[in-house]
């Protein structure tokens, strides 16, 4: 029985703990400075908006941990001593380990803007950040959000729910266009404005201006425009939360450097989740993976290794999802913001400008590369299989209805997509066949 200590009770650390428990009888201790219990970071926005309370964001009931002999410690690790195999807690002593897993997550980026430390200037990552946002946005009338990514738009939606006027500064030409292709990005631009958010594209933050009490009073944009506001949300990305490891001999660059087994340079020390940086990134993948799903997969995989079955990280086809105000987004496979050299696509958009489907395939082999969905839900298992089997776009289009995952009675768009295909491939006409919906009950 080994003594395993995990720093971080986020999705990566907790998944590791749960899976180690499933596979073994090791002693497991999870340390976190943030909250007593695991909660869903992705649900932070809903707490602020009053859709849920903190209680509801905990995926497991509180008795779960004791029942599964997962020991929870609340505390901040101030340093790690890899020679003596100990972690030091701020104020509350030290904990020894045989194996140390670092799942310490991220922190919001701050790029050295003047005034970024003022009261009323907040990133949004942790539960404590949320508490501050709650305090600083009480009875205010105008907020500015800096940084047009997924967390930025969530923060905008949050503030709207409290009837706070929002100005949204986005450095790029169009919302999240480093990831989204132009049409989807433009769709979200429109949707943001439909919600009466003042979207400022190609606008950067230059400075945050203080009032006499050290609280934000205004911001100044790159063009020198001053905007009065009582709150500034900094959502220009996140980076690994590893400052406390600076003095240890664990190798860190932007994140904690690991190989495909999540091993750091120090034996028995591993890193997973947002804070891990792959020495050699997997093909088509980033060196640091900052999403919920990858954190979970890291944890599942590492648990195997720790329990004796050394397992390399090998994720399947990429997928992700998000929600931009009212428009849901799903992606399967890798869709770049612009087609690559040998790629071609079929793009369909609903006339109301709120639904779109983009199917990208290899121009010469015609094999499916990925599907981007706005305002439409598709089945993960079906497309995952298609991607792994490398099926041709023709078969994708003819079977597209099987991938649809929208609720019953929703309008289906697959026939329209087939029409686009048919006009693009005049020599290869496809016919709509498969049924779905209520009548399908009696046919399948």
């Amino acid at each position, binding site marked *: 029985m080994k003594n395993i200590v995990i720093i971080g009770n986020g*999705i990566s650390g907790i998944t590791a703990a749960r899976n180690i428990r499933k596979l073994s009888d090791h002693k497991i201790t999870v340390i976190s400075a943030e909250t007593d219990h695991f909660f*869903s970071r*992705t*649900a932070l926005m*809903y707490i602020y*908006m*009053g*859709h*849920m*309370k903190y209680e*509801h*964001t*905990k*995926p497991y*009931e509180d008795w779960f941990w004791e029942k599964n002999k997962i020991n929870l410690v609340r505390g901040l690790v101030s340093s790690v001593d890899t020679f003596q195999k100990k972690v030091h807690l701020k104020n509350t002593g030290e904990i020894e380990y045989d194996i140390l897993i670092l799942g310490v997550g991220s922190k919001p980026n701050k790029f050295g803007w003047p005034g970024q430390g003022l009261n009323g200037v907040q990133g949004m990552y942790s539960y404590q950040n949320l508490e501050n946002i709650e305090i600083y946005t009480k009875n205010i009338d105008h907020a500015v959000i800096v940084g047009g990514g997924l967390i930025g738009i969530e923060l905008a939606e949050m503030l709207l*729910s409290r*009837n706070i006027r929002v100005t949204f500064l986005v450095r790029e030409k169009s919302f999240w266009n480093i990831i989204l292709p132009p049409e989807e990005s433009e769709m979200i631009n429109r*949707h943001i404005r*439909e*919600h009466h958010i003042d979207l400022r594209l190609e606008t950067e933050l230059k400075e945050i201006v203080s009032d006499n009490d050290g609280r934000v009073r205004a911001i100044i944009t790159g063009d020198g425009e001053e905007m009065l506001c009582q709150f500034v949300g900094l959502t220009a990305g996140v980076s690994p939360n590893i400052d406390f490891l600076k003095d240890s001999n664990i190798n860190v660059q932007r994140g904690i450097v690991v190989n495909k087994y999540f091993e750091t340079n120090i034996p028995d020390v591993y890193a997973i989740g947002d804070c891990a940086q792959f020495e050699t990134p997997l093909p088509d993948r980033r060196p640091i993976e900052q999403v*919920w*799903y990858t954190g*979970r*997969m890291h944890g*599942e*995989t590492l648990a*195997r290794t720790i329990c004796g079955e050394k*397992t*390399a*990280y*090998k*994720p*399947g*086809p990429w*997928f992700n*999802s*998000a*929600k931009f*105000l*009212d428009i*849901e987004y*799903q992606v399967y496979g890798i869709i770049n913001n612009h087609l690559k050299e040998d790629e071609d696509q079929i793009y369909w958009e609903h006339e109301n400008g709120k639904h779109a489907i983009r199917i990208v395939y290899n121009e010469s082999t015609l094999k499916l590369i990925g599907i981007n969905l706005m305002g439409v*839900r*598709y*089945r*993960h*298992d079906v497309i*995952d299989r298609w991607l792994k089997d490398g099926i041709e776009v023709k078969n994708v289009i003819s079977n597209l209805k099987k991938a649809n*995952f*929208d*609720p*019953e*009675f*929703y*309008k289906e768009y697959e026939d329209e997509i087939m029409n686009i295909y048919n006009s693009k491939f005049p020599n290869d006409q496809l016919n709509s066949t498969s049924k779905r919906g209520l009548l399908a*009950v009696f046919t*399948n």
Partner: protein
Amino acid sequence: MNKYFTFTGLGIFIIGFFVFVGSLTMSDYQLSEIIIKDQGEGEKYTALMESSKSMMGVTYQSNIAFINDLRTTIENANNSIIEKYSISMDLAAKISERAGEDEKFIYKQSIIDELLPAVDEASTYQNKSLKDYTGWMEGKKYSTKEALTKELTGSIQSINNAISYQIAFDSYSAKNLVFSITKASSLGILKGNLKLWLFLSFGLMIIGAFTYFYGTYSDVPAGIKNNQIFMDAITNKGWLGVALGTFMIAFYIFLYFYPEYLTNWVLLMDPISYKLNGGPASHWFLYGFLYTLAVGVMGIRMILKYRHNTYQIIRTISVILFQTAFAFIIPEILAALNKPAIDFKNIWPLDYDFFYSYNLNELMESGFLGWFMLGWGLALIIIAVPVITYFFGKRWYCSWVCGCGGLAETLGDPFRQLSNKSLKAWKIERWMIYSVLIFAIINTGAVLYTFFTGSYSLLGISTESIKTSYGFLISSMFTGVIGTGFYPLMGNRVWCRFGCPLAAYLGIVQRFKSRFRITTNGGQCISCGNCSTYCEMGIDVRWYAQRGQNIVRSSCVGCGICSAVCPRGVLRLENGPEKDRLNVPELIGNESL
């Protein structure tokens, strides 16, 4: 959100609501001879006329005082009748004495004619009853005088006790009498202008509600908007929620047990009732109207709130139509035609009195239509429930057709997040709901036993007492008072989740033999918890979703809200082959394993 409209709407609604509640105190009450005459004919009504003299012409400002006096009046009428018809207790000893004259104590009915000759109304009744009660004693020989006296005293006591319900007003008809006299005795501004007050109460509430909805939804893009739900006092068990719960609980208690205090509301219904069935309203008409109105108005809110979601729109239209047509209008029309006023969509054992003798008798005496209704009811139980549930899950009933479900999905929608999601609650739920199912079956078995054998005692237990307990505990207290009154405290499906025996039956089919399931979408779940939070049945949907397991639960009513609120498109209600329904939990995406 358009604040002008929401504020105005709320204001108008509150005015209407206060008029509605205030209308309960808006009448004066005065009894008249005509009112008593209208109640019926016979000895007891004559006695009532006599005892009500002191109330005649007196104007009461409050219904409480009026009802108190009225109750006393009815009691006095009963007492005078009892006094008139009671047999004197001395008679027992006298008869024994007479029978003992030749020292044998042989009982003979001829002694009755001797000592209690039938000369007038009262003595005729007494003479006849005593003969009826003692017929079996004829010629019987008693060893002592005391033994005979004791036997006779018992009989006389029984006879005297029976007067109160044979000649006088029994407690049930006394209750109805209080209600109908109070209603008829109302005077004043309300009664004179029923349509005006109908507008000022219901009219304003409806206008206010729609204005509020317009303000809430008109200038906001469609989408999931549960903003502030857990900060609002009404939807988060704050003081307003508690106040609303208390109001609804009080309403149910008055409706079921003291409707005589609600006669002004029933009066307001008269214009509508006359239009619909040609007669005056009862308190059950009031209830039906309120229920249907709540489902309709809050159903429209539901449709506006989920206007981007076709499943929700169609489902809500369905519950509104079933409630309006099947539960409200059709039974009223049937009643007006003097036919059995049944609700064609109500299914045993939720329809707990389907097998009660009065229902069976009524149906069997109503010709072809009655027999059809009987067959229809049986077919629903035996064929419709298993077959339709096999294809679509129990949702076809619970969230598309049922009245209780209809109210829960419309009026109750703002409270769905208050259901308890803990494992413990699930355990309690299973114990309770199956207990109620067993209770319902026992109750039905007992009444059928009585129906077929005529015997009121089954294994030493009185079938009437089983029936009475079921009626009080389950149908009044659980379904109404707790089931609806606790919406703002325990969520909108308290009854459906913990109590409904039909839901238990549907659930067993759904769990073990159905094509219905909620499919989870590969590895897309982010464990946010929206699905579990908004599950009115308290199912911890996330627990399944985050491990990639289909949701196959007996309690799921298929409302589809988990799927609607999921921000990542993880959940889909589906009917499909049984084969892969109970799937091996799998999260797609990690090929390392």
